[in-house]
């Protein structure tokens, strides 16, 4: 019995030690997942992940300000002033993301750290953004989301006129091809040319 006991205990302890020192004995080829800046790729990944989270923070701020306004805690001037600052911050983050190849809408808003990391990986690898696991969009939509989108769009349209520097040369940024105004077949509200969902009722347009 002594032999069995010694054997089992010995085996347990020995294998623990072995497991612990193994990376020193046989260093891993790919140290990527553990080191923050092995070959520059990770740094960019890390930056993208961080910017995505910053972007979500910025959006959340905007929504919070909007929310406080709805709840009647902010006066008109305070609201306008804070909103302007928050929007500016959001746009700045969006610009930084574009500079790193992440386009607007490529990664959904309100992701968590893990998803930010995954998305960043894919962008760093040069792949198109993931997002395919989203199935059918639900028809109801958060109108705050929609309003947010409109405002950011509107703000963006203004920005180029104010001479904000473009991050990278784009293929012929041209005025949008004039098209007839679109209306939502469900509720009749006006919808922008590029909108896929109605901002008022959430009906899928495309």
């Amino acid at each position, binding site marked *: 019995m002594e032999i069995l006991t010694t054997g089992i205990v010995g085996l347990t302890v020995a294998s623990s*030690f072995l497991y612990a020192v193994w*990376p*020193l004995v046989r260093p891993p080829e790919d140290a990527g997942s553990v080191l923050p800046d092995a070959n520059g790729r990770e740094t960019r990944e890390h930056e993208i992940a961080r910017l995505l989270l910053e972007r979500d923070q910025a959006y959340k701020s905007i929504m919070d300000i909007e929310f406080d306004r709805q709840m009647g805690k902010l006066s008109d001037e305070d609201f306008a002033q804070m909103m302007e600052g928050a929007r500016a911050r959001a746009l700045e983050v969006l610009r930084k993301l574009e500079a790193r190849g992440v*386009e607007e809408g490529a990664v*959904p808003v309100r992701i968590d750290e893990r998803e930010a990391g995954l998305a960043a990986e894919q962008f760093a690898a040069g792949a198109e953004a993931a997002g395919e696991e989203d199935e059918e969009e639900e028809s109801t939509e958060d109108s705050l989301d929609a309003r947010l989108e409109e405002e950011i769009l509107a703000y963006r349209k203004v920005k180029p006129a104010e001479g904000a520097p473009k991050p990278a040369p784009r293929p012929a940024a041209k005025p949008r091809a004039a098209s007839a105004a679109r209306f939502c077949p469900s509720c009749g509200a006006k919808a922008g040319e590029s909108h896929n*969902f109605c901002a008022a009722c959430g009906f899928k347009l495309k």
Partner: protein
Amino acid sequence: MLFIELGSYGITAAFVLAIFSVIASVWGGLSRRADFILAGRNAAMAVFGLVTAASVALLWLLLARDYRVEYVAGHVDNQLNAFYRFSAFWGGQEGSLLLWVLLLCIFSFTVIVQNRDRNQVLMPYVTATLMVTALFFLTVLAFITPPFATLPTPPPDGKGLNPLLQDWGMVIHPPNLYLGFVGFAVPFAFCIGALVSGKLDTDWITSTRRWTLFAWFFLGIGILLGGAWAYKELGWGGYWAWDPVENASLMPWLTGTAFLHSVMIQEKRGMLKVWNVSLIIMTYALTIFGTFLTRSGIISSVHAFASSSFGWAFLAYLAIALAVSFGLVIWRLPLLRSEHEMESFFSREASFLLNNVVLVGMTFAVFWGTIFPVVSEAVKGIKVTVGPPFFNQVNVPIAILLIFLAGASPLLAWRRTSGKQFQKSFVYPSVVAAGGLATLLLFGVTHVFAVLAIALSIFSVATIWLEYYRGVSARVRHQGENAWTAFWELTMRNKRRFGGYIVHLGMAILFIGIAASSAYQQVGEVRLRPGESFSMNGIRLRYEGLRETRNPQYTSAFAKLAVYQGGRRLGDIEPEKRLYFTPPQPTTEAGIRRGFASDIYAVFAEAGEDGATFRFMINPLLNWVWMGGIIFTLGSLICFFPERWGRRRRALPSAYGSEGDYRAPDKSPTPAAAE
């Protein structure tokens, strides 16, 4: 012998590997070497494996009643059922410490797995910090109080489990509290990682938000359940005595609450960075200190399990941990500068800051009061204790201010609130609170602190109601939802905010319960013969007789009391007195009739032919304390769930792309835009 060897060698091996893990992780992090970082990580996982093996071994030995092991002989006997043999694991000193380190290893394992692909800058130091903590406990377990020490001759029967611990409440209590204590090691480890690496953005906070909530929640529940148990089992009709061991668990909870609030300021406005790192260091230190207080018996307490010889080890570790941690803070001060300034008193930041100051002040008062006997003995040569009068005198006004803040804060916006808007919002809850105040006074409730506490709790509740009302109205107006859907959606889309409101609601109700039951408790002590009655405050208790029973573990006597109110028989209560055999010890079980408006509470001291001696108490609104606790639990759970639970992930629609098309609007290929 297998399990004994497995246990003791397992602990020794874990001790060695923990040292290895610390050294390898720190070296790997500093020199940016993946092989060392991985080795350190693997070693931490191995420590987890070994500690788990040792724990399983101890469990086996307890269940099998292997009296060769001193710990088993000391806490189990031949009569004890399997459930209590299981819980005997943490019934004594050594097992309790093993449980602490087991939980720490489980958490370390989880953190490592969760972060295998992220936080690469921080993780080596996180691993090292967690392993240093484990190392301390493993040192004590390996060299000072080994759980697997054997006896030269195994006795035929063990000493059995303390009867006070043979109760499901006491079985859950230590693991419950330890989940809280140990849980705070995780945010602390990330903080140290941030300080060492210099990466002092909010990553260390956002990565550990749920861990902080988890630890804080379990600590809070542990405190409440401890109080509930004391209420039922200790027979003095109260649930909190400002006992040193109770205070030991309260203090980290207070600083943890402060921390939960102040990190929101850093996330939102980049302020209070130094404060936050200091606060989590203090919280961690208080959890170690709390474990020390509970285990060492250095401060005389009815709770103290046994005086131990290793209190000095805890103090030494505490001193080193504090010195190193604050040294790191001082070193990194330049990186901890605030990004913004506080703009207005009437802002949420300001209210959170005040909340923090108040909570830390309360902690300081409780700490000072708790260690005062030790200090006064060292300084003046006589031991002086300060009891409940001191703690209540200092903490009650503070708690009142706190509950007011909990009410005022939702009315404030971040950065600044427009004066007029604030006034408008302030009116409704103030009017309701004033109404409550007037009602109380009208009904003859005049105890100053009770009235203030209840009125301000009403103020808080009214604010929360107002927030919900306004939020729901906004959704009904803009989204066309019905009120119930709006209520649900509002909470689920703003889990942090509205979960927090519900936690506050729970605290307000709890506070009302505390105020009423403390200020207006009625006590009566009397000796009754069978058939005789005692009346108090409209309640009549009639002693009907004694009944005795017996089981292998104890004999017991029940005193049957009929409860009458206004001539109507409400029911019966049966306080009980037990006499356990091993170890020989009597215990008291209170007879309680719980009600929404009050509790009727009875214990009896002894009974003979000529009657029994009783102590009766009426505790108004006592169950509000537990009800508040339940609501607190609900709110915490809401805060804990991820933001998108219950709602499917969606990309921002339209201009931001739809399925398959992820290019920005002005890049979309149209016929006009020839490349």
